[in-house]
């Protein structure tokens, strides 16, 4: 029996191309070892494809191509050195020749500085754009995460097959079971984050707190830069009842500060180790400081703030609690030598055990996903970056085609010079080498300038604030990027230099030496083909950017269910340990809202959590049931929960469709339990019937103890649906609940005003400070900024692709102009004859334009076909239109045609200025 080699699409073609690339090696090396090299390539291709998909293939190609060029040229060099090595004179001669060629090249540039400048700038645009985008790709997607042996780190998520919930966190008992049963992992740690308050002998400060198991930093392989990490003995293992008991005093814990807090709050003082602070009212000893920039990277939609200020060991006993109290994001380190797929297989078996052991896991159909951490963190930006990389690749190809065209034209102009050199005994190889040297020098100059452009461009990229790009802070040029630039320059030189060099090294001595040689028709064909390619690529880019523009317009047309204009927002979290009796926090919030309402210019005030588009929405959901709860219905129905204050819909600008919103009376402790639902909920739960007056069963936290309790609430109103998470997606059915039922929830104030919002910022902060100086001081933010942020990813891709397609259009029309005007010059005599025989101006113009339009037409055809083929790749970036949107295709093809016409008009008009007598006399 033979083992079936794993299937890897594209391998056959890739191997064929790789074998062609091996021509770089000298034949005496290639013949005995070529098969081995190809075998290596094959093995690696299969494995990388299996591991990383098409990104793996890109990586294999990048490395292999560079390797072949470097090693192949190295072998050639060594081979020469070996066979003729003894002859020092020859070797020196070769270096001498190269220097001579380079000197000759620069002499040429000095003679025609315009030509060299145009070529270098063209290449710099292409290489610079590629370098900038590759730098982002490298920093975001390719570099390993900043942990020890980061490729061994996996995130472990729950997937509930009955509700489509993915990336579900886990409960404490789940984590303990994983540790006990999963052999594939060397260690498993859990973490979650909450907002809290840091107090000490300074103004209370709102901080994000990372609650972690004691082994968290060990699993990640991160050591504190000061003090110690957490130890198992730091786990307090408190009974959750004690933790939630308002009257209990908690034993002191330990905390590790982030580098940022250590610098900002403690002036980077190393003496703070061992001193005490209060986090959320609990005394904590500072034991360590995390390294600068340390982050626990999670996918953007996971239950953890991106930046954590203080790290604390989870004080509750993990074995207590129930399976449905899911809060822990789990990261695991694989045992050395264990592959992710083995861990997944093991976890699949554990998931089956879970379903048979625990009612909750059985109800939701719990599955376990083991995902490599890097892929999970950055995977969602792959499509955008892939599209951008493709776009800049096209720009470079267009630039190369343009340069090849210029070189071809110039080679023709130099035909006589080359012919003379050939006639004087300059060998073909020598001439080709000289021209290749010229291309190489041009490419390296272009690469150098391109690197500078990229350097400036990256700052611009970051200024565009692609908020959804993880690790954007680490984007920068490094060794990998420099190698990339060098490789790209060499590749570009091969692309644009080979053709002209080969073409012009076969001069027909006879005709070239004649005074007025006509162009060889082969050159025309090559140049025409190049221009057609340029136009095709430009159109693909134009259509791509057109689709993005249309998507963006569609996106802004979406009605999200609220009106963000003229609204200021403010997050207010009350210190948990101070406001832990029922009603106490709601009373304070109501008081704050009333006082903000009295400020001049304020029209409406309320508060809700989470804020639409403010993030964190996915953690505020819960079950509901319409009948006496049966577990099956209970676990199937999930909806978004939105704790809120009275007057919310007026402040948000959300329409009330039936019944009423909340009043202050609804928020009183002991009031009848009520809810407001949205139209989506009405569709799902009541099939569109007006539910006002109906009952629905939901849950609320039970005060003073861990866990939740179910209760019945009466529907008093129906409102328009609000897109909370993402303007692109409709989202889930929503239940609004008076804040008094969820007393400990933070609230986001929504202040609608008819005055300049900036004048309200300080008064609002003053209101909050007056209410309780212990409330962390957050700054009011215009609601619009969240909306802008939500549109940022689309805008980022849009702006870049638009810029690239603009560059592409300019480059390709310059190319078209060059080809048409050159052929006009070549055909001067023919045109003169035609005019001498009575051809009119219009006829001549039409004839020249026709030539340009035929090329444009063919290019546009190829471009449309290419766009249709590639449209699937960008479909995830689009919104509200199909990737084959006919309006976009049509409009941009016409636009391209107009620009192309423009590029041909100048040479066409020039053609009519031919003086027949002069032109014919010259012959």
């Amino acid at each position, binding site marked *: 029996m033979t*083992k079936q*080699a794993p299937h890897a699409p594209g391998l056959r073609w890739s191997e064929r191309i790789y074998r062609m690339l091996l021509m770089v090696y000298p034949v005496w090396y290639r013949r005995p070892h070529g098969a081995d090299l190809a*075998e290596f390539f094959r093995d690696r291709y299969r494995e990388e494809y299996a591991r990383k998909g098409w990104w793996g293939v890109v990586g294999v190609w990048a490395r292999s191509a560079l*390797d072949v060029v470097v*090693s192949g040229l190295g072998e050639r060099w060594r081979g020469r050195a070996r066979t003729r090595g003894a002859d020092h004179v020859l070797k020196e001669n070769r270096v001498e020749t190269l220097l001579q060629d380079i000197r000759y090249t620069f002499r040429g540039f000095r003679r025609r500085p315009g030509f060299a400048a145009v070529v270098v700038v063209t290449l710099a645009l292409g290489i610079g754009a590629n370098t900038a985008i590759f730098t982002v790709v490298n920093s975001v997607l390719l570099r390993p995460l900043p942990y020890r042996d980061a490729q061994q780190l996996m995130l472990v998520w729950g997937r509930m097959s009955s509700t489509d919930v993915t990336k579900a966190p886990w409960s404490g008992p789940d984590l303990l079971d994983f540790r006990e049963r999963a052999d594939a992992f060397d260690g498993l740690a859990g973490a979650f984050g909450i907002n809290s308050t840091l107090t000490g002998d300074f103004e209370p400060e709102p901080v994000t707190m990372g609650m972690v198991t004691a082994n968290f930093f060990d699993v990640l392989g991160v050591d504190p830069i000061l003090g110690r990490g957490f130890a198992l003995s730091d786990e307090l293992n408190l009974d959750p009842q004690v933790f939630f008991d308002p009257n209990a005093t908690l034993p002191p814990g330990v905390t590790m500060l982030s580098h940022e807090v250590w610098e900002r709050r403690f002036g980077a003082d190393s003496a703070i180790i061992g001193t005490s602070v209060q986090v959320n009212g609990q005394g904590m000893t500072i034991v360590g400081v995390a390294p600068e920039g340390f982050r626990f990277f999670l996918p953007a939609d996971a239950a953890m703030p991106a930046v954590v200020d203080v790290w604390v060991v989870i004080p509750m006993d993990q074995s207590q609690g129930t399976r449905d109290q899911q809060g822990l994001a789990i990261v695991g380190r694989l045992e050395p030598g264990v592959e992710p797929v083995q861990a997944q297989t093991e976890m699949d078996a554990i998931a089956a055990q879970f379903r048979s052991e625990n009612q909750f896991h059985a109800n939701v159909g719990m599955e376990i996903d083991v995902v490599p951490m890097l892929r999970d963190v950055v995977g969602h930006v792959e499509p955008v970056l892939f599209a951008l990389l493709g776009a800049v690749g096209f720009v470079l190809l267009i630039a190369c085609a343009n340069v090849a065209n210029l070189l071809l034209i110039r080679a023709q102009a130099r035909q006589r010079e080359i012919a003379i050199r050939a006639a004087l005994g300059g060998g073909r190889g020598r001439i080709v080498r000289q021209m290749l040297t010229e291309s190489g020098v041009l490419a390296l100059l272009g690469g150098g300038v391109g690197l500078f452009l990229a350097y400036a461009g990256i700052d611009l990229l970051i200024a565009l604030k692609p908020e959804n790009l993880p690790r954007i802070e680490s984007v920068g040029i490094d060794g990998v990027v420099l190698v990339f630039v060098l490789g790209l320059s060499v590749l570009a030189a091969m692309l644009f230099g080979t053709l002209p060099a080969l073409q012009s090294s076969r001069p027909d001595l006879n005709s070239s030496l004649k005074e007025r040689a006509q162009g060889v028709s082969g050159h025309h064909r090559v140049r025409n083909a190049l221009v057609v390619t340029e136009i095709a690529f430009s159109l693909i880019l134009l259509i791509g950017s057109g689709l993005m523009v249309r998507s963006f317009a569609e996106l802004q047309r979406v009605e999200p269910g609220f009106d963000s204009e003229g609204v200021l927002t403010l997050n207010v979290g009350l210190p948990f340990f101070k406001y832990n009796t029922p009603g106490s926090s709601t009373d304070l919030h109501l008081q704050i809202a009333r006082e903000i309402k009295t400020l001049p210019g304020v029209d409406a005030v309320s508060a809700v959590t989470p804020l639409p588009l403010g993030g964190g929405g996915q953690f505020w959901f819960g079950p509901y049931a319409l009948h006496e709860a049966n577990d099956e219905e209970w676990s199937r129905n999930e909806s978004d929960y939105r704790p809120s204050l009275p007057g919310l819909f007026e402040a948000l600008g959300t329409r009330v469709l039936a019944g009423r919103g909340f009043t202050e009376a609804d928020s009183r402790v002991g009031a009848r339990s009520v809810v407001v639902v949205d139209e989506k909920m009405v569709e799902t739960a009541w099939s569109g019937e007006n539910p006002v007056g109906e009952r629905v069963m939901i849950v609320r936290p039970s005060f003073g103890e861990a866990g939740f309790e179910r209760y019945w609430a009466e529907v008093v109103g129906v409102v328009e649906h609000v897109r909370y998470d993402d303007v692109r997606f409709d989202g889930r059915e929503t239940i609004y609940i008076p804040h008094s039922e969820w007393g400990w929830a933070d609230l986001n104030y929504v202040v609608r005003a008819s005055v300049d919002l900036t004048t309200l910022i300080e008064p609002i902060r003053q209101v909050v400070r007056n209410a309780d100086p212990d409330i962390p001081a957050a700054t009011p933010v215009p609601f619009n900024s969240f909306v802008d942020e939500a549109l940022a990813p689309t805008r980022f891709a849009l702006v870049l692709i638009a810029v690239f397609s603009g560059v592409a259009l300019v480059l390709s029309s310059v190319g078209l102009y060059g080809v048409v005007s050159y052929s006009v010059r070549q055909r001067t005599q023919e045109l003169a004859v035609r005019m001498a025989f009575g051809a009119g101006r219009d006829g001549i113009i039409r004839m020249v334009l026709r030539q340009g339009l035929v090329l444009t037409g063919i290019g546009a055809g190829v471009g449309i076909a290419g766009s249709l083929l590639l449209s699937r790749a960008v479909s995830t970036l689009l919104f509200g239109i199909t990737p084959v949107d006919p309006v976009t295709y049509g409009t941009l093809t016409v636009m391209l045609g107009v620009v192309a016409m423009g590029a041909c008009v100048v040479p066409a008009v020039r053609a009519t200025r031919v003086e027949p007598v002069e032109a014919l006399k010259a012959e």
Partner: protein
Amino acid sequence: MSATSDELGAVLPLKPNDYHILFALLDGERHGYWIAKEIRRQTVGQIHLEAGNLHRTIQKLIRQGLVEPTEKRPAPESDDERRRYYTITPLGRQAVAADAARMKDLVEAAQARNIIAVRKPG
């Protein structure tokens, strides 16, 4: 059979890549990609040999008599492709051993000077 000290002296000390390739071959005959992967694993990703570099180094080791191509296969049924396998020669084994001993001396010297920590058992 034992190599003369001259033969060994000519190849010692081994370059890091040479050492890792020989080390990877200690357990039997292997093919090129496997060797590269094994080295990457052993060095926790620090040494990443590309095809060209690997084959050139192997050719050099063959010329030095430390490695030889072999027709033997570790487990013929697990492999359906005609790959080229390599095996380590007795001289190669001696070179690895000699080089490892040399590095051990270096490590001990460094420990004696308190440059690196001595790992305590457990």
